[in-house]
């Protein structure tokens, strides 16, 4: 659950955000503060894979990003896997 790429994708589902906004959002919903190096490492990888893309902005320094359709599909697949793991673990815990 602490994979920075998944956290960034999850943050961008809500809407376009720039780096600092993504960092604050992740800190709020996951309780995890990503360092600047880790955050931009994840952003670089996600953009290279075509899962996020930069969007036009009035601020020439703060670059917002949005989730692409491929990124959304990848996130959904990841969420299904996670959900299956969580359900299985919960069921086993109940019977243990």
């Amino acid at each position: 659950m602490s994979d920075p790429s998944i956290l960034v994708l999850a943050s961008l589902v809500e809407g376009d955000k720039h780096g600092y906004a993504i960092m604050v959002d992740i800190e709020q919903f996951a309780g995890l503060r990503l360092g600047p190096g880790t955050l931009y490492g994840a952003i670089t990888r996600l953009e290279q894979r075509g899962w996020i893309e930069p969007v036009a902005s009035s601020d020439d320094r703060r670059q917002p990003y949005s989730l692409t359709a491929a990124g959304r599909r990848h996130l959904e697949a990841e969420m299904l896997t996670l959900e299956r793991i969580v359900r299985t673990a919960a069921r086993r815990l109940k019977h243990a």
Partner: protein
Amino acid sequence: MKRCLQWSARLYPAAWRARYGREFEALLDDLRPSWRDLWDILYGAFVMQLSTPAAYLKLGAMTAVLGAILATGWGFMLPRRYVSTAVMRIGPQTGPFALRRLASIQQEVLSRASLSEMIQRPDLNLYSEERKGHPLEDIVQGMRSRDIRIQGVQAVAARDGMVFRIEFASSDPAKAQAVARALAGKFTASPGLEVLDPANLPTKSVSPNPLRICIFGLIAGFALGLLLAYLRRQPLRWTLWILGSAVSGLAVGSAVAFPIGALTGFDPLLPACLTSVASVSIGAFILRDRTAWARAPYFRYALACGALLAVVSGFASYGITDRYVSTAVLQAVPPDRARLDQLQQEVLSRSSLAALIQHPRLDLYRRQRQSEPIEDIVQTMRNRDIRIRSVGGDLPAFTVQFLYPDRFKSQAVVRELVARFIQTNLSRPGSFVLEVLDPASLPAAPVFPNRLTITALGLAAGILLGFLIACFRPRPPNPGARPLVPDPSAA
């Protein structure tokens, strides 16, 4: 702190900064900076640098510099060896007479009693640490064969008596000088010997060579960097597998090499490292073979078998006894081939060689004499160990060589053979002049076995064997085998 973060951001690759630099700086402006962020940026820059196409060179250069620094540091921790030299002259005789006299004095100076006295002398107090754990006999032997060197100075020997050099090597320069001086003193106790140049106080060590160690570290670090850069792009299991191969190879190599090294005295580090390299090759071979079973296996088989046989043959070569060769050069004036052949027959006759073998001072082939008749040993000595060859085609000069496991005995036998040539020649009517151009040398290194050649032969044989195995090996697709690294295309 903020400035520190901004400076760290410059460590990212230029191409990355061109794309993300401005927004990254904006993020840093918005942050409340901490030391954790600084570390995070440094680590991020390192990872990003290794993601560029030039990552191989970058990582190779980094580990090369690190390897050079570590190796240089290690080199400084090694004990230094200093050599003090004294130059002496024996006279007034020249040629074989001077040589025989010098040999006799040298034998006395280097005798067990003489060296034991020197080792235990309170003002010298030599080998104090070794004496706690080893018998004095071993220390005397080590001092004689490893630390003392007596060599003729050829340029002066021809016209001005016989000039020779005494050298002593020690980790303490003052002690090296004191021992060289003491050895020279023992020589001058005999009449006709004088010191031309007293023992010097060495200022520079002869070993270890810091430049050579630094270059070794540089190359090893660079090779390691390339390997790491390659493994970084592979699944984690590859890295663990290769590291495991290297460590297990080093462990097995050390377990074999260090006990043998302790018994025979050879340096076990090189064979242990070679085993580790061979183990990495075999590990890579197994890894590749599991993931790409159907591909042509010739190269991998050849590499693995070659590395394995090179290590095995390299180790096996240490089981062969070292043999040293001492050489003397003589000249017959005027040249008379028939007479020389006659002299050679007499010197190498059964009675002459049997006397040489059983001479109490030489005591040659002791072990063989317990199980073989003396005729056989004489035959072996004549055919295998003694070599008498002419130098060039029509020149009247010829060499006398003797091959033996003990370098001092090798030299002593050549000296004795030379003396017999001269004596036999003088005792016959109408003798010509036999002149010693080059006295019997004291061999510094063994000529046999050539371990590098044996290892190279093992490598070549292994490569050939690997190709043969690859040619005749059945190659089923092996569908039941579980691959070590899952094939991404199968998913």
